[in-house]
């Protein structure tokens, strides 16, 4: 049972990081379709940083910097140039896939994975579930979500973020620099999602092509299913992770095909959007550009 909980927490860590970023971005009015791309960029940069510096901590820094860079490009296109957020979001994900593959060839002369890099904890699952508790990023993931909740509801910046996402015109009229707030929010989301990617790379002790494997979209699903509220989103992340853990543990029994377990987060989110279990109402100005 404890092993189950620990494994769930471990699987939930990247979701928690990325979803925290997703909450900040979407509450500020910028659609978080790019979490997947930010994660992949973060994972690659973390691998690069850790490989060349020999320290996983510097890997985290490099990963966050990479995610930040990608986020700034996203903000430049969607906020400064008011380009369509969905189009840019899709393109950013494509860009992340292309850039990481290109530089994987350039840096490590491989089209599939990096060499082994310094990371945290045991590389293999077999090395015991408790070893993952020694991974500081697991705890940082939880702390990060708490911090985002505090930031959103207890600080002036959080108030401005929420205003920018709900009523940007009203916020502008009382002097809130809406576009600057949105820039900051996107930057935070990039750094958070990149931490999720860094966790993956450092936990598996290497970068593999496309290693995020849709986790950014699961995080987005958690944000929507959790109605953009840090507490509920945390529960959604843990729920999705628990389903995955269950599937891994019961794999040998062949009770439910793994493909059906994969569907759970997405199906729940579609149902939530349709309003069957309480309508999920997005921030009013989500996706709308501000002059």
């Amino acid at each position: 049972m404890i092993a189950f909980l620990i494994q769930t927490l471990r699987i939930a860590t990247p979701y928690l990081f990325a979803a925290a970023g997703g909450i900040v971005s979407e509450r500020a009015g910028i659609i978080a379709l790019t979490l997947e791309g930010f994660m992949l960029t973060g994972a690659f940069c973390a691998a690069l940083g850790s490989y060349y510096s020999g320290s996983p901590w510097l890997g985290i820094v490099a990963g966050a910097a990479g995610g930040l860079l990608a986020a700034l490009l996203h903000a430049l296109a969607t906020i400064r140039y008011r380009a369509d957020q969905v189009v840019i979001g899709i393109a950013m994900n494509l860009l992340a896939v292309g850039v990481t593959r290109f530089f994987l060839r350039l840096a490590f002369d491989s089209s599939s994975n990096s060499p082994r890099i310094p990371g945290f904890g045991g590389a293999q699952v077999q090395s015991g579930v408790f070893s993952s508790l020694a991974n500081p990023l697991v705890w940082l993931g939880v702390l990060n979500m708490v911090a985002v909740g505090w930031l959103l509801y207890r600080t002036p910046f959080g108030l401005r973020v929420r205003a920018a996402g709900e009523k940007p015109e009203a916020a502008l009229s009382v002097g809130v620099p809406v576009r600057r707030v949105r820039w900051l929010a996107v930057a935070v989301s990039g750094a958070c999602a990149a931490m999720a990617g860094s966790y993956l790379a450092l936990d598996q002790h290497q970068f593999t092509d496309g290693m995020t494997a849709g986790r950014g979209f699961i995080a987005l699903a958690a944000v929507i299913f959790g109605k953009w509220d840090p507490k509920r989103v945390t529960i959604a992340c843990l729920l999705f992770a628990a389903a995955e853990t269950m599937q891994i543990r019961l794999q040998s029994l062949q009770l439910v095909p793994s493909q059906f377990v994969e569907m759970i987060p997405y199906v729940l989110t579609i149902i939530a959007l349709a309003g069957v279990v309480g309508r999920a109402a997005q921030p009013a100005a989500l996706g709308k550009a501000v002059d």
Partner: protein
Amino acid sequence: MTPPTDRPASDGVARVRAHIEESILPPLVALVIAAVVGDVLIIIFGQSPGDVYRQLLEGTWGNAYGFGQVIYKATTLTFTGLAVALGIRAGLFNIGAESQLASGGFLAALVGLAMPRGTPAVVAVVACLLAAAAGGGAVGAIPGALKARFGASEVIVTIMLNFVVLALLNYIVAAHIHVSETLHTPEMNAGALPRLTSVFPKFAGSAANTTFLLAIAAAAGVWWFLFKTRPGYELRAVGLQPDAAEYGGVRVGTVWAKTMILSGMLAGLGGLNYVLGYKHYYEEGFAGGSGFLGIAVALVGRNHPVGVVIAALLFATLSQGGLAVNALVPKQMVDVLTAVVIIAVATAVPEVRRALAAARSSSGIGNRESGIAESARTQEPPNSRFPIPDSRP
């Protein structure tokens, strides 16, 4: 502003010129940006951009095989591009073309498999065609219905549905009907379409097939539907001004639902290219990102059927060209370029337009009325939400 009553003929010419400028210039700016990024990447990799671009062109339009591959890839992209473009015309963002394409191909393969050997080609092909349209349309119907009924964001629903549908198809193929040791279904008994090789032997080896005629027909059909029929007019009206359309008696929700079904059907038909024209079976992952590329195709093609066909050829060339230059630079460079083209088009189009409009109003070219309106607006008090009424004598 009152519309100009006595517009001189030269104004009409200027208008056409402005229209051409607006539709040609922004994509050109975007392509230049992409080329610059491409150059940088090539130089980082220690190659000469000239060599790489020459190789890219020679490997695609320079020989029959490469050209055939471009035609083949452009065929699928035309279908997914049309699907996305049709949605955008109605103000909907269909990001589900990927799974609609897959399920269209899947159903077509199933129908081809179910028919007895020796079924007349006409019957078999039409049956597969209907199956592909039904497969894509069914997947498109879900976000359409949820949008019309509950106002659920079609962007999120189509993204989530991609994962659900692809997982479901993978399950069905893996658990029930795959050829052992592979991830594809058995070959169809009937319904295969001839390859171009059988008519032009030069195309030998390339996957180009007669589905490309179907793609051109689909583009023509979408053009006719959008610009020559009443439902097409309503669809565009909904896309431009949903509230006004509703006020004008159009049922917006119904139009949305129908558009998503049509859009899904178009994407589903794209599956024929692989299934009927190339492999004659459904294989896991055959869509391979063509659905997402459809977004780029629609965007660069300005959501016009003719533009979509041209843009499909452009992205097909890039995609095939990536393979052609792989010996010099990683083929992944093409993924980067594709993304850069999308970002550049999405940001450059509104920017260049604004710049063009500003240049036109300051130099007095084009519609003189709008030039005056522009200058009137600059004089209005900062708080006024309405332009100053026209007070000329």
